[in-house]
């Protein structure tokens, strides 16, 4: 039996300036229990997409459905089932941790006090009823996570949740998210620039680029079925010839060669290039971070000259 859809984006567009869409025709869906990483460069639209899912922004085109409801039409019903942590979430600085917890207990009737105590213990905050402004950045983020997860949400939305945290705090944060929730079937939608985090959380990756979904794939499949081909420029003079080749996910210019990402194993891609351009290209699997850089990084404008 297919798990129910909890998040659906259908042809969603959103802009902040006329004729400059941040998102343009984004379509994807997410099932219960799935972990989905949103990837993309700065200003790729990850936060916009998350804000749309939270009902904090309105789409200019298309529809967003969370648990089958519109997050802007039924915000209370939707948000009661979501936990949300974001990098730029500024909790009220003069409030104490206990006050934040009391407020969330009031808002979420299914608040799990046992989980709250466990997390306070785990974060070393159980006997430190400090004000938010007195906490370190990592501690404040832990408080935000605690507030986001103790009502055991069906969907946890994390917008760059571990940004600015040191590696240990980062790992602690993410492990908590995963261990506590995803094992129990909570879906997690998170954005991150850190490929280590993405690989640790696993699941599915959605790469946003140019306002569109460029890649939507399981991480394992992405690692297994993509490779980098380095093609000498003397053999192929026009970059668009490579881009038009079947299975090409993206290509850009290097010093004396083209770098292209293809779907398929290295041997398959090598054969394809040999057949098409009569060139012996170097093809290899690459780590996720390299894949990300090859797909959205570099001076592609210069390469297109």
């Amino acid at each position, binding site marked *: 039996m297919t798990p129910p859809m909890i998040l659906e984006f259908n042809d969603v567009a959103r*802009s*902040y*300036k*006329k004729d400059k869409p941040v998102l343009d025709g984004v379509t994807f869906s997410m099932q219960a229990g799935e972990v989905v990483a949103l990837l993309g460069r700065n200003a790729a639209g990850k936060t916009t997409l998350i*804000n749309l899912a*939270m009902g*904090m*922004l*309105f789409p*200019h085109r298309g529809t967003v459905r969370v648990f089958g409801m519109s997050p802007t039409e039924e*915000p*209370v*019903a*939707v*948000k*009661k089932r*979501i936990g*949300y942590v*974001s990098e*730029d*979430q*500024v*909790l*009220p*600085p*003069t*409030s*104490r*941790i*206990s*006050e*934040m*917890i*009391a*407020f969330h*207990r*009031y*808002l*979420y009737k299914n608040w799990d*006090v046992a989980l*709250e*105590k466990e997390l*306070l213990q785990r974060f070393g*905050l*159980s*006997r*430190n*009823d*400090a*004000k938010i*402004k*007195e906490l370190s950045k990592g501690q404040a983020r832990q408080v935000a996570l605690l507030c986001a997860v103790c009502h055991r949400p069906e969907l946890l939305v994390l917008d760059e949740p571990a940004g600015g945290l040191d590696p240990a705090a980062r790992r602690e944060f993410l492990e908590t998210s995963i261990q506590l929730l995803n094992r129990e079937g909570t879906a997690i939608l998170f954005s991150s620039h850190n490929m280590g985090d993405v690989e640790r959380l696993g699941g599915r990756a959605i790469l946003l680029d140019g306002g569109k979904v460029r890649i939507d794939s399981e991480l394992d499949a992405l690692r297994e079925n993509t490779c980098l081909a380095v093609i000498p420029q003397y053999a192929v003079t026009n970059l668009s010839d490579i881009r038009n080749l079947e299975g090409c996910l993206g290509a850009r210019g290097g010093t004396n060669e083209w770098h292209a990402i293809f779907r398929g194993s290295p041997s398959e891609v090598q054969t394809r290039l040999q057949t098409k351009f009569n060139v012996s290209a170097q093809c290899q699997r690459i780590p996720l971070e390299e894949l990300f850089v090859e797909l959205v990084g570099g001076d592609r404008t210069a390469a297109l000259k």
Partner: protein
Amino acid sequence: MTLYLLLHYWKPNLDIRENRTLLVLAMLVPMIVMVTWGFPGTVGVWAAAGTTAMLGAITPQRPTRFEAALPISGRDIAIARLVSAFAVNVTPILLATATIVAFNRAPFPAFELAASVFISVLAVLLPRLVNTNQLTVTAGGGVTPILVMGIAAGAAILRFSHAQSLALLSVSAVAVGAWWWRRVPEAFQLAPLSVSSRVDHSSDADVSSAADRTRWWHVIRTTMFSKMRVYNCALAIMMGAMGMWQLYLISVIMMEDVWQRARWMQSMPLSHRSRLWMLLTPGFFLPLLLTIIGAQLHIPGHDEFQSVNRSAIGTMGQESRYFDSPTSVSFDYWEQANGAVAPITAPWGETVQPYVIHVFNRTYYNPYTARKASSERFTAWQFERLTTSVFGVPLALKDHDDGQLNPRRLNAQPRMMILNVATALVIGFLFMIGMGFVRWHKSWAHQTIVGIVMVVFMVVPIGVWLFTIVAYGMRQGAMNVLVPLLERQLMNLSPVLPSNNFVVLAFAAVPVLAVYSLLEWQYKNSEMVGPVPKV
């Protein structure tokens, strides 16, 4: 203040405290206005001092790493910073004084100048007393303006003379300065304020148990009520007492601060209406309530608040500047002239040429004018006519002078309060709708229209208001003309309505609810985008 608010609104991430030029400009406007106004009684001094104190208290005072790393003593840094802060505080006063001299409309305001300088000393130094080790303002620093205002209010209530006020201020300033100088350390620290400033003994409490005992609304309270709002509340009462409802609009502009502070709640499962009311309560309804309370202030023996001469228009240029006419009255009681202004004639034939002012190309005159040269009988006759208009009953000038009779003004009574509050709510809601237009999700594609709407709602009203202050306040002594013009319309409307106040309430509720519905609809369709500011 207005400039500060405008800049704060237009560029929410612009911290005016970081920009000395803007700070000086922001202070220049109120100081010129206040000093040029001529300090009627002590109120003008304290209003100017309050503004100075408030801005003085938020002047940037934390030492930079550059300063702290210099091989110079803490006292040298402190003095350098102090001179800088004084320049910010005193420069507008000097410029305002120069403006007066240039206009040549008043004697040199020596007392006002001295008082402002001494209050600047208090305003600049007091915040630093709280924790001189860091040369910064801690929570207690926010109390300073209130403290200074409290001293000022006390002096006003005790009816201190100029000499007594000056003595009090100078002694306070010298004492504060000496105390501060002794406490300045050899070196300042850069440690984060919140970590180093105090030890919180409650931090050992079990957090879960503490949460059991904590009410849910504590977070709402701490989110919505900044310490500065206490100052606004005091100001709301004072302005209400002076019949200056325009402060209410300033409170609405300051909603931007509340709006930003509540931003984190967007992800909470709270309805739009709940969140809107969380914004409206501290930023909108509370100042209104306090303004109403202020309008009701009535201290026996002190008739300033319900005085017949409250917010009266001065006689600048038409009479000796400091001639205190008992029949001076605020602009809402002035009449518009049709053509030339005829002399006012008493039943026994004595005449007087009324005071006139020109506002928006129209001539207005005070129908209750009694000049310095008028007879006592004429003045008493005019005073009776005036008090009949203001209080609904004729009062004898002698009783009023003795402080024996100072009944409540008609416009402080429930009927006029209903109309005033309804008007304030409608204007405030409309203002908020205008400001919120930029957050309407459909506005993003129509930046030009947004710009036009913002100009119409923000720049035009504030610009007109500032224009009236500068044009009519500086030249004719009529500081406050817009609100009285509106008040006058409401006073004309009141007799037309049924006599039952409940019917008036129902009548007034209709436009309020209509505009509120529009505001709520807009809020439901609004969104917060852009960088998250520090709160």
